Every structure is written in C-alpha cells, then in structure tokens.
C-alpha cells in the first residue's frame, strides 16, 4: 500500500519514512504544503500522514482543499498542536484521525492500520483471503495447510494489495501505483516478475492473468 507522508522536519521525515517502509508501505515523502496538495490530488494513495505546521501552505488548508475537491483519501493528521479543540477542528476539516506529537511509532502504525481497515471496510484484524492469511506484522503469509512463507518487501506489498482487492481486475498500472513509491522505476515488467515469484511461492491458481488487462486474485468473486 502506498502512503503520502507530509512532514517538514528534516530529521523526523526521513526517519518516519524508513519506519513506514519497514512496516511494509510504499512511502512518498513531501516537505511542504503546496507539493503535498498536488501529490494528494494527482497520485493514487491509500492513505496520507499529514503534519499541520507546514511551510508553503498550512496542513489544515491542504486537507480542506482535498475534501472540497471531493477526495475521500484517508488522512491521519500528525501534529504538535494537539489541544482538544485542535483535534476537533482537525476532524471537522476532514481528518480521519488525529495523532499528537510526540507519538510512539507503534501507535502511529496501529492507527494507520485501523484507518486503512476502516477505509477498506474490513473489520477482522487479519487479512485472510482464498485460504491465505497475511501476517502483516511479520510480513509473511500462512497457507491453508499451516505452512508459513516469508516474503520480501515488494512481494508483501503486492500480495497485500491483491488480497485487499480479491476478485477485482487489477491493471498493471494500478498495481504499480499502489505498490511502488512515486520516484521508483515503474517498469511494468517488474510487476510481471513479482507476480511470477508469488505464483511460485503460493501456487499458480491464485492469480489469474487477463491478457492485456491485468490480474485477478483469488478467482472471480
């Protein structure tokens, strides 16, 4: 899943990006309000982590602009301004969650997970589709027979995205958008290669290829 991280602190931003990557997300980092608004409008993110005290344009204004444009992008606001009235105002401006600084990394990850599950309308804590159970914490997958298979970072992101959207036709470009960061090499052949590796690990029948259109995970729903 691909996140937009908007944080102007030169130390905290990259560190947070690293933590989020480790947790299995593709992360684009932006350090000002104007770029943030543009990225949020143009790119297909699954969620945004938004600092409010931004140079260029205040975070709350960026958020309001997204909402005015009709975007339902899940947004966690991350800010030092965490008086109760600021949290309420943040929520009214369209934030889905509000986390005050300083925060613990686990807290952010837990809230992010809860937010994504809400956005995908999943209630069960673990992702389980077509006999597979994804362990998001350890980034591995359990087969129906109980065998646990380790996954690389990209494999994990790809499999998670497909498991979230079972039975849907997923084009290569859509998969690329949600699995890779904005500045990475987006050669669609790479996706093909990863699909191939997932099939080797999990069995051929799980992912069906629609030539010229894309892939369907777990058979048609």
């Amino acid at each position: 899943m691909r996140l937009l991280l908007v944080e102007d602190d030169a130390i905290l931003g990259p560190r947070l990006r690293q933590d989020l990557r480790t947790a299995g997300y593709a992360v684009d980092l932006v350090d000002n309000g104007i770029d943030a608004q543009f990225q949020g409008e143009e790119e297909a993110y699954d969620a945004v982590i938004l600092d409010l005290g931004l140079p260029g344009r205040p975070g709350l204004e960026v958020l309001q602009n997204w909402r005015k444009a009709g975007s339902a992008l899940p947004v966690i606001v991350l800010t030092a301004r965490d008086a109760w009235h600021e949290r309420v105002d943040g929520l009214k401006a369209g934030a889905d969650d509000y986390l005050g600084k300083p925060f613990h990394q686990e807290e952010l990850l837990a809230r992010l997970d809860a937010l994504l599950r809400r956005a995908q309308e999943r209630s069960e804590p673990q992702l389980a589709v077509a006999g597979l159970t994804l362990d998001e914490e350890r980034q591995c997958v359990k087969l129906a027979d109980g065998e646990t298979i380790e996954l690389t970072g990209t494999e994990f992101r790809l499999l998670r995205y497909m498991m979230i959207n079972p039975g849907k036709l997923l084009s290569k470009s859509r998969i690329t958008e949600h699995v890779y960061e904005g500045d990475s090499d987006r050669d669609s052949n790479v996706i093909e290669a990863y699909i191939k590796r997932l099939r080797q690990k999990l069995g051929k029948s799980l992912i069906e290829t629609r030539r010229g259109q894309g892939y369907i995970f777990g058979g048609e729903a």
Partner: protein
Amino acid sequence: MNSLSQRLHIGLGLSLVLLMALIGWLIYDQNQRMIDDLVVSRLEHDGEGLLAALQFDADGKATLAEGSLSAIYQQPLSGHYFLLLTEKGEVLRSRSLWDVELSGNRLTTGEQRVDRITGPAEQPLILWAGGYHKANQNVTIMVAEDISQLQQRLLENAMLLLALTVIFLFLILFIQRHIVRSSFAPLRQLGQEIEQLERGDIDQLTEAVPLEVQPLVVEVNRLLMVMGQRLDRSRNALGNLAHALKGPLNLLTQLADHSETPETLRQELQQHTTVLQQQIEHELSRARLAGAGSAGQRFNPAEELPALIKVLERIYHDKNIKFDYHAPQQNLNNIDRHDLLELLGNLLDNAAKWTKTRVHCSIEQTDVIHIVVEDDGAGVTEEELAALTQRGHRVDESLPGHGLGLAIVKEIVELYNGTLQFDASLELGGLRVQVSLSPDQ
C-alpha cells in the same frame, strides 16, 4: 432602584403637578376677584339708587320714594338687603331683612367700605357701605348681597378644572411613557445583543445606537476586539511553542523507541521524555485557558460533541466504546469553546481509558452549566474518591493513570467558579464525574 425611565416619570409628574396647581390657583383667584368686583359694582349702583330715592319730609323724617325699589328687596331673606341710617337715628331697612342688623357702623360722608359678613340665615354676604350727605343730613347706606350661589358656582368650576387637570396629567404621563419606552428601545436591543454576545451568536455590538450611548458601545466593541485578538495571539504563540518543543521531543521519543538504542539508555530516555512531555502538555494547556467572560468562540454541544466523540473513537479504536450524550442544541452561555473542549476532552478521555464498553456524557444549562461524565469501568475505591474530592489536592499525584488530564480539569473548573465531584455511577457502575460551572459569577 436606579431607573432612568422612573426618574423621567417622577420628574415630569412633579413639575406638571406644580405647574397645574399654580395655574389652577391663579384661575380660581382671578375668578373670585372678578365676582367680587362685579357684585360690589352692582351694590354700589343699588346704593346710589337708594340715595336718589331717599326723601325727607317737612319733619325731617326719612322715607323712600315708592316704586323706586326693586321687588327683590321686598321678599324676606331674598339675599338682597339694604339698610339706611340717618344722622337723626332713623333706620330704614329692606323688608327682606326683617329686623336683622347688617352693621351698626356709621360712615362719614365720602367714606366707602366693602366687607364680607355673615347675614341672616347664615348667608355669606358682601356688604357695601357708603357715607353720603343729603338734605343737610349725614346718611349711611348699606347694601348687601348673598354670594353663596356664586361661590358654589366658583367651587364647581374649580372642581371641574381640577378633574380636567388630573385627566390631562395622566394623559401626558401616559404619552410620556410611550415616548420614553420608544427612546429606550435601542437600549433594550443592546441588552438582547449582549445576551447574544454571551452565547457567542455575534461577536460585536451594533453601533447604530442613540448618540448618548454610542461611545459606550464603541468602547465595548473595541475591548471585545482587543481581547479577542490578544487571546488569538497568545493561543497562536502557544501553538507555535508546542510545535517548536514537541518536534525535538518527538525525535527523542523515537530515539527511545528505536531498537538500535541500548536498553539502559532507552529506559532513561523514555522516563525523561515522558516527564518532559507531561510538563509541556500541562503548562501549555494551562496557558491556553481563557476563563469566564472571554471574547472567544462559544461552545455548541450539538456541533462539537459528535466531533469530540469521533476523536475519542479514533484514539480508542481497538476498544469499541459506545459513547452516548445528552445536551442542549444551542450555544452554552459565556463559556469559551476551547476551554470547554479541553474540559470535556479530558473527562471523556479519562472515562474512555477506564471504561469497558460505555461512556455517558450529559450537559445541562440552567443558571450554571452542569456536566456529568460516567463510565462502566472499575471505578475508584473509597480512599481514592476521598483523595480526589479533597480540596486543593493535586489530582495527578493521587491517582496514577488518571493522569494530568484531571489536573487541567480542576484548573478549568476553578476558572469558571465551579465545583468538581467524584462518586460512583449509579447507572453504569464506574466512576461518575460531576462538574458545575458558573461562568456568570
């Protein structure tokens, strides 16, 4: 009571009564004089007629010429009387007088007198008397007339005048009441606007008011603006300070969390950053408080409570708490939105922290604002309750886990002259916190 309209009524009423009394007395007095003059001139006339009719025969005996007297003097007690006294002691009196004396005084020639006397049958009379010289004799002629009827008429006129005066007085006061009421209408509107101001429906008073109160209104508006700006500025500055302090603190927290940091250092870092964070949080929250009578935004329960509950649901996303509330639809009077959100946020956060499934919140506004927050958690023991309720007790030290939130709650309650009570919730079984705020005191 110091009422401008009452003062105006009393002032106008008194001056009108004085003025009308003066005019009434003048009219009465003038009428009286006019009647007297009229009667006297008529009596004088009759007196001169009597003098002309007076004859002396060869013996010097006085008689009145026949037919020269008006019939009115012949009827007994008719109210018209005369009496003639000659030098030789003869007395000629009208038949109407029977044998009553009018006055025994003789006048010298040329002398004239007017008197008020009481005549026969207690009639009030005006008596005119003149001294004359005729046929070598000094004669005193007295003519009198009953004025009781005239006086009665005069009195009736005076009463009529008085009645009219009283009616006019009430009419004028009635009209003035309307004038005063309509002149004070802008003031009443101002009063309504001040109520709206307290509820936060408006943030400035209308300056289109009468000249006399305009400077006051302009000054109030200026103060409101200055206070509002000052509050905004200080809250902004505090926000910036929070941002500036918490950035580095956040990095320290992350460092303390980081697996690469040695365990001993991690623990120490965590300890220090926690203390730092609590101190910063507490002092910033305190500094942000506006207090009663501030110029900030007002709190609308129907708008703010659902948002606040949503914030809490996000924080406690893994607990699935059922929040319900009961609150008025309109703005709460005279209480700052930020302050009340801080209060409710902390109380509800605390309840959410300790509850199992349910948190209930109710807000009521009468003379005071009454807030109840209860949960279905384990509650607190009797000892803890006692410690919490104790006056001047530092809440944060007494109850680990109930944290700094209650300390700031206490500060807010004090700012609004309120009370804070803890006991067991009858309905839900957990802790019940009752707050009442009196922002108007």
